[in-house]
């Protein structure tokens, strides 16, 4: 028997390490320290109900576990074999306790390829990775396949880059393999900049060896002996686990000179990012690895021709790499049987926002939004109404009710006016103002624009100003046209992918929620009731008892009225601070 304790970021933040200690202590006390292993794993995906503890092999899934629950888990489940009912997940519909993870709605529709080992193995122990066929794919490549065979398998599998653009991975490898040079590099892009996505981090924290193995396979295929992982300094746990994994892989001879006794040598170094979103763009990333400001440069030349230190470099995303070893070991036929015609395999999404089951999910390409949001995600929080989902982060757009049944893949998302991006999926409900959401993303872009080219540096700032203007009730219909024109200019004239995609959140909300923009500019009203400056406070005469609480609380003396008589708000003076609303005990202050 094994006890798996989630060591993902979410669960660690909720002190899962204390649970681990308590479980160990309890087992020790009962003399079971040697028989039952307690392992800290990577994220299980069901972060909403963390901290999570799983009992293997029966897959019992305990949620919201507290350190003091360790005693009952050991006494009841481990010793007497009786699962602890009160810690089981309760299905929100049937209200029944769900005995194991296989029967949870959250997991039923998922297929785990990139996340295959996350939440199953101890990421700090290479033997557990090897026990699940780890490094077998690398062995197969080196001993049975030529580099051309490897590239051919990846091409036929239909794998496309998970870092955003969806470029065919096999083709990229082929280009890099054909460029002749004395030194080539395999680069793993672990910069994960989308501010609402954490899949790459979870793979690195939960299954670091799969990335090392895949990079070595890539090195074998393209003829590179050096790998570089560019990882954000903000991910200390992932860095620590990568370092441990690198040490173990070298010790086992799976990295270094003459791997598996062949003449193939490959080793990997870590490079650290320092908090700049644009460094996720591959040319900027390469400059950053060279110790410079991470500013993008024009493509071509592509990194595959001239990358790190001017040498051919193959850049792939973490999740892309994570799929590679299984494609080799299970065969491209298997991988390409999953997904849609032009998007094969699965995609990991970070499901977040106004949804019941926030977490990390992996579904076959072609799954619909409806399945993701209402089946896996368990629907909208607090029974509110679904409004939109933002995919592709600051480069993407929003999808609405009418897209709920669209099968999700690279091409359908683009056709719907959004994009796959890295897989952030933020669900919004009726209380979210779409103008504010667009403004939020623009704020991000303005902060992150590297400033090299004018359309992005200045244009996005203007866009942000206009949006701020509108959310304050100062916009006009002409501003909406100006907004659209500016978006198109920025898209067409920016140098890199950041500027070329930054207007997308604005364009897509304009397309789907024009009525909301119009309400802001013509009626000076925010339909979602979220723009503070557009709120109007008034006092309902019938409900006001004249207690004067509101008038005393108002910082600008905007409220007048006699004691025991009805009070009034002077709209000219009101600064919409909301103090009166909080002060009134009789519900007489109305917001709209």
């Amino acid at each position: 028997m094994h006890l798996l304790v989630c060591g993902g970021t979410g669960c660690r933040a909720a002190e899962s390490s204390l649970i681990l200690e308590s479980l160990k202590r309890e087992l020790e006390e009962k003399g079971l320290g040697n028989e039952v292993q307690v392992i800290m794993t990577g994220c299980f995906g069901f972060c909403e109900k963390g901290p999570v503890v799983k009992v293997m092999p029966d897959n019992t899934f305990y949620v919201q576990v507290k350190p003091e629950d360790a005693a009952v888990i050991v006494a009841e489940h481990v010793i007497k074999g009786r699962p602890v009912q009160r810690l089981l997940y309760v299905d929100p519909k049937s209200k029944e306790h769900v005995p194991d993870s296989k029967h949870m709605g959250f997991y039923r529709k998922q297929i785990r390829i990139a996340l295959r080992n996350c939440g199953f193995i101890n990421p700090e122990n290479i033997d557990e990775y090897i026990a699940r066929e780890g490094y077998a794919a690398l062995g197969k490549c080196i001993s049975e396949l030529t580099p051309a065979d490897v590239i051919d398998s990846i091409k036929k599998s239909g794998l496309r880059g998970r870092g955003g653009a969806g470029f065919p991975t096999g083709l990229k490898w082929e280009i890099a393999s054909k460029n002749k040079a004395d030194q080539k590099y395999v680069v793993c892009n672990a910069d994960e900049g989308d501010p609402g996505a954490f899949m790459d981090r979870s793979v690195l924290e939960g299954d670091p060896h799969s990335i090392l193995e895949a990079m070595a396979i890539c090195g074998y295929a393209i003829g590179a002996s050096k790998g570089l992982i560019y990882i954000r300094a903000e991910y200390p746990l992932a860095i620590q686990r990568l370092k441990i994994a690198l040490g173990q892989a070298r010790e086992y001879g799976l990295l270094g000179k003459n791997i598996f006794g062949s003449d193939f040598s490959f080793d990997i170094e870590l490079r650290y990012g320092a908090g700049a979103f644009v460094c996720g763009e591959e040319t900027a990333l390469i400059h950053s690895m060279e110790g410079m400001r991470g500013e993008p440069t024009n493509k071509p030349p592509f990194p595959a021709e001239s990358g790190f230190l001017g040498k051919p470099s193959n850049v792939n995303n973490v999740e892309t790499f994570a799929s590679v070893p299984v494609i080799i070991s299970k065969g491209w036929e298997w991988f390409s049987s999953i997904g849609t015609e032009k998007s094969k395999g699965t995609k990991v999404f970070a499901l977040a926002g106004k949804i019941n089951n926030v977490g990390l999910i992996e579904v076959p390409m072609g799954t619909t939004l409806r399945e993701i949001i209402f089946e896996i995600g368990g629907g909208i929080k607090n029974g509110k109404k679904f409004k939109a989902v933002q995919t592709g982060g600051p480069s993407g757009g929003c999808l609405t009710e009418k897209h709920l049944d669209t099968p999700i893949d690279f091409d359908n998302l683009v056709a719907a006016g959004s994009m796959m991006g890295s897989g952030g999926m933020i669900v919004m409900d009726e209380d979210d103002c779409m103008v504010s959401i667009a403004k939020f993303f623009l704020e991000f872009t303005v902060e992150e624009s590297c400033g090299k080219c004018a359309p992005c540096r200045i244009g996005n700032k203007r866009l942000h100003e206009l949006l701020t203007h509108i959310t304050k009730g100062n916009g006009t219909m002409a501003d909406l046209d100006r907004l659209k024109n500016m978006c198109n200019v920025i898209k067409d004239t920016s140098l890199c992918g950041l500027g070329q995609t930054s207007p997308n959140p604005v364009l897509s909300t304009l397309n789907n929620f024009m009525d909301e923009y119009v309400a802001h500019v013509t009626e000076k009203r925010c339909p979602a009731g979220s723009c503070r400056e557009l709120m109007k406070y008034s006092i309902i005469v019938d409900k006001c008892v004249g207690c004067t609480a509101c008038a005393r609380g108002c910082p600008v003396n905007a409220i007048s009225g006699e004691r025991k008589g009805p009070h009034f708000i002077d709209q000219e003076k009101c600064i919409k601070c909301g103090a009166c609303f909080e002060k009134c005990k009789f519900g007489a202050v109305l917001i709209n």
Partner: protein
Amino acid sequence: MSSIKIELRQEDLNKIHEICDSFNNEPLELINVLHRTQEHFGYLPAEVQEAIADKLNISTAQVYGVVTFYSFFTMTPKGKHPISICMGTACYVRGAEKVLDEFKKELALQVGQTTPDGKFSLSSLRCVGACGLAPVVLVGDKTYGRVAPDDVKAILKEYE
């Protein structure tokens, strides 16, 4: 460059040289050098940047250019208890802005500032990977999840 003027002591200088040496004084390693130096000093004041530039034999402008480009590097010391509010998308839609406003109000600070007594500093960051707990606030190494504006006072109290 920065408003803070400090005098580098010989031991500080030695430390900087030691860090640069450990990367073979290789300009390609500038970002790694800066990471290690900031780990040691807590921030990267102008004088430290000059010393690094000297040692790596590159211009101070190049070092300054890199330091100011990356938001992870800072030229002002952080507070004893650095407070970071996650402003990632998931936290934003679950009300992070109101939490940030409350911290600003309680501490009378803007983002990027430190209280005069050096106790608290305020910053925002993007997705810490705990979206399930949104909105998320970090104080030093401690993570607070599902923070409501009303919780802010109690959180600050823990550090008094």
